[in-house]
């Protein structure tokens, strides 16, 4: 009886915020509970949910090390594991020269090419024997060096990581090897329609002047010297912009001393970047940018434009709206273009939410013969979320609940927790972000969804990038009348039409 009452209250609470299906589920609950008390099973009754589990956000301690790095420690003792990461605020967008794109990645790779006391092979063997692997990478707005290991291997693995970080020797022959392998990868990307679409989209939307529009090329890769790598290491890997996260089966009293000791040779210094980017190019009229891939079985679509940064007050409304447009499997785009029309194996949409104007992007692989119909469907759904197809109560409930109730999944592994905690600091979020999340999502209203869809999906200036079989798709795409067609090559340069 208590359960029935609880569910009935749940029904009322959810109905108040518009959850029609939830309400019907809760009512079904009453019937189902009755059935469980002895009546025959009626499979038509959807079993009701139990009481919503209480959210347990991990708690962490925070300290500033003597070299200026932030240290956050989160305990999790159910398994003998420790995740260790040093995340750097800012990445290649802030610290790479346009002519030397690739130097950040080269430097990260070269950390494991030898230190003042260990050869590259010795570093590799030591990691293998510890059953761990130290990963280093730099992306656009952050960088990281990290490992996860058994608790019993934490201290020796930490000592190895510190050696890579502080004492690398960057042997010149290793740079040439890495450069050679990178050139092969770049050549292979020219055969890969998804990679072509991603690169052309970035260049088309942001242009050469904005870091978001820059793409690593053979030319920039060839321009990187060993001196560049040494200089990048010296400038970038600094404790002043580092957030160190230690997560797992550690003794919180000992861990600070362990980290201080391991990183004793890492000199203080380093500023946090301002993320002051140049302005994005003035929006251009909507156009289809077509890259020919003769006889392609699919057309790869990337449609979008610059979006808001992560600090937008519309973040929560956009998350819910995007979930309904193209985030969920049952989102409008995927449901219609994949499930109903059968044009694709999957389409979706996202907002990148960078420290700058990260892109809105809707994408997917479309069977060649239906490229025109799919484009019409994309446009229909962009207009739909802007008001022409009203959101149902159940859509909105689903869009919110899927975000709110999936939060605990982020806290199931030491890596997940470490990332969740570190991102508070690397993305400059409030420390109560996770506790506040459900309330902020719940507060998003129907009008907010339509408002942000109109504000951030600018239909008149969409960049529609399509990589596919031009001979088959160009005519039908033109016939849709959606936008003029500009033919580009795989580097995003205009092709002179014969």
């Amino acid at each position, binding site marked *: 009886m208590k359960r029935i009452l609880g569910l009935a209250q749940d029904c009322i609470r959810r109905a108040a915020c518009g959850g029609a299906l939830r309400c019907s589920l809760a009512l079904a609950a009453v019937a189902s509970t009755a059935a469980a008390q002895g009546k025959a099973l009626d499979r038509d009754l959807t079993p009701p949910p139990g009481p919503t*589990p209480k959210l347990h956000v991990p708690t962490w301690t925070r300290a500033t090390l003597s070299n200026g790095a932030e240290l956050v420690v989160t305990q999790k003792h159910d398994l003998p594991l420790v995740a260790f990461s040093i995340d750097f605020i800012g990445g290649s967008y802030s610290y790479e020269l346009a002519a030397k794109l690739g130097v950040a990645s080269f430097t990260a790779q070269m950390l494991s090419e030898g230190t003042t006391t260990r050869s590259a092979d010795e570093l590799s063997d030591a990691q293998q024997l510890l059953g761990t692997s130290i990963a280093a990478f730099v992306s656009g707005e952050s960088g990281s060096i990290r490992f996860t290991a058994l608790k019993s291997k934490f201290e020796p693995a930490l000592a190895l990581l510190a050696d890579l970080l502080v004492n690398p020797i960057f042997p010149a022959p290793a740079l040439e090897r890495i450069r050679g392998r990178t050139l092969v990868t770049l050549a292979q990307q020219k*055969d890969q329609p998804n990679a072509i679409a991603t690169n052309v989209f970035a260049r088309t939307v942001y242009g050469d002047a904005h870091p978001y529009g820059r793409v690593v090329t053979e030319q920039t890769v060839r321009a990187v010297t060993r001196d560049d790598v040494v200089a990048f290491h010296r400038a970038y890997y600094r404790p002043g912009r580092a957030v160190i996260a230690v997560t797992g089966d550690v003794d919180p009293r000992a861990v600070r001393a362990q980290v201080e000791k391991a990183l004793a040779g890492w000199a203080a210094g380093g500023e946090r970047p301002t993320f002051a980017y140049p302005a994005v190019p003035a929006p251009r009229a909507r156009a289809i940018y077509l890259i020919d891939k003769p006889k392609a079985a699919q057309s790869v679509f990337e449609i979008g434009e610059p979006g808001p940064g992560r600090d937008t007050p519309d973040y929560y409304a956009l998350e819910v709206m995007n979930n309904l447009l193209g985030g969920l499997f049952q989102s409008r785009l995927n449901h219609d273009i994949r499930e109903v029309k059968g044009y694709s194996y999957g389409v979706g949409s996202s907002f990148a939410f960078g420290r700058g104007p990260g892109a809105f992007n809707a994408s997917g692989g479309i069977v060649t013969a239906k490229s025109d119909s799919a484009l019409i469907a994309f446009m229909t759904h962009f207009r739909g979320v802007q008001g022409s197809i009203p959101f149902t109560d159940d859509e909105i409930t689903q869009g919110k609940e899927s975000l*709110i109730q999936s939060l605990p999944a982020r806290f199931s592994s030491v890596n997940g927790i470490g990332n969740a905690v570190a991102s508070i600091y690397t993305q400059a979020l409030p420390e109560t972000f996770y506790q506040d999340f459900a309330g902020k999502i719940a507060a998003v209203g129907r009008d907010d969804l339509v408002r942000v869809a109109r504000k951030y999906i600018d239909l008149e200036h969409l960049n529609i990038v399509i990589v596919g079989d031009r001979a088959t798709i160009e005519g039908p795409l033109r016939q849709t009348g959606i936008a003029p067609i500009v033919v580009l090559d795989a580097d995003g340069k205009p092709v002179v039409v014969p």
Partner: protein
Amino acid sequence: MVVSRTVFVAYGLHLSTPPMISIRKSSPALFLLLTLATLPVNAQRAGGDAKSAASVRIPFERMTLANGLDVILSVDHTVPRVAVDVWYHVGSKNEVPGHTGFAHMFEHVMFTGSGHVPYGMHDRLTEGVGGDNNGSTTQDRTNYYENVPSNYLESALWLEADRMGFLLDKLDSAKFAAQRDIVQNERRQGTDNQPYGRAFEIMTAALYPESNPYSWPVVGYIAELQKATVNDVKDFFRLYYAPSNATLAIVGDFDAAQAKAWVARYFGGLKRGAAITRPTVTPPVVAAEKRLVFEDRVQVPRLYLEWPSTGIGTGDTYALRALGQILSGPRTARLTKALVYDRQSAASVNAFDNSAENAGVFIVFVTPRPDHSLAELEATTDSVIDRLKRDGPTPEEMAKTSAGLEFGFVSALQSNLGKAEILNRSLVFYRDAAHYQTDYERLRTVTASDVKRVANTYLGAGRVVLSVVPLGKPDQASKLASSVKVTVSPDGGHYIMESR
């Protein structure tokens, strides 16, 4: 092979693993998980501490319903979520030649609603409440899972029971045709539109005779997918989707007594299925080397080598895994060191064993750097393997292959679904849900002489050597004169390997 409801992007770009899996929706994370579970422990191994750790343990309870459904329950209250994972012991090997891709297409149909579950409700009660779902198909088995907040366990069980018992009640040809289109799109995205996307299919077709149930790709051939009918679905369902051919693992935050009551309530009334005749998969014998060349839309050629190895039933699968780790991966692995670091003739190299339930293959593939031919890479690869066959691995190499085992296992314990997959795999393939401990022990105790022996036993002269070369540049193949050209049949139904 694994293929799935949603995409997985992983193999198009990276090709570090063959397309042995098909998935309902795109999910690189799922792909990694499936790869992990297929190989019960992580790819990192290594030695050191000699004894098996106490941490290599997943507490569980097992029960069997009267209709034959095997149920495994493993409680873990760490996070308020629960995984429901159903395995059916059916995969592409249960298909018949000419009707390939059916088991996987069926997996898609399983998400379109059932007798008491309208279309859309499955996603509504999983993803729509903060959970997720997917399914995947291999040569040997098909799985379906839901990860949900723990208060949605009962509805997840209701969903799985309904499609196990009542799928056909609501199935019509329109629903079926829609999923058939989607699967064709999956194939286009994962295979036909990907550089090198056909390489593994070609090697498999060359290695196994056409009648062998492991000879066709899990995702199937386009022409045959188009032929599939709704009646095929019905026959397939009745035979293979019975509780007596299924296992159900529930892992996570729940009350065991309550879960058992729900399982009995929703699954108890379903009918046991007819006896199933399992297909006979004869391990292939390749008497002599088969050399092939395939022209693809690529700028960089690539060399593939594939040998028949063994199924998981023989004990050699453990040493073959160690052999893969000794050959490629870290910079001190033998092929990686020789090709990528010392000679710098290759941009990358991968070597691994892929053992399925009844047979397996050992695969090496190498991507050259400019000015290095596939013939040169083949010669280097062969000389490295020959040296290993002659001298065996060093004690240090053996120590490295086993040192990461415990970490790999303990890491997997952080995922409810990861544990469910380990338990289901153990139960379905070994009839013992705790068999993963045996796997672990046997991996840990592989010796240098075991590795030397399996290298000599399996990496012999009988193999397939495939050069994938740019269109119009067959001369980039290794030993073109003795290679047979491969083309795709006009209907996309199979590969033609012409003799000269």
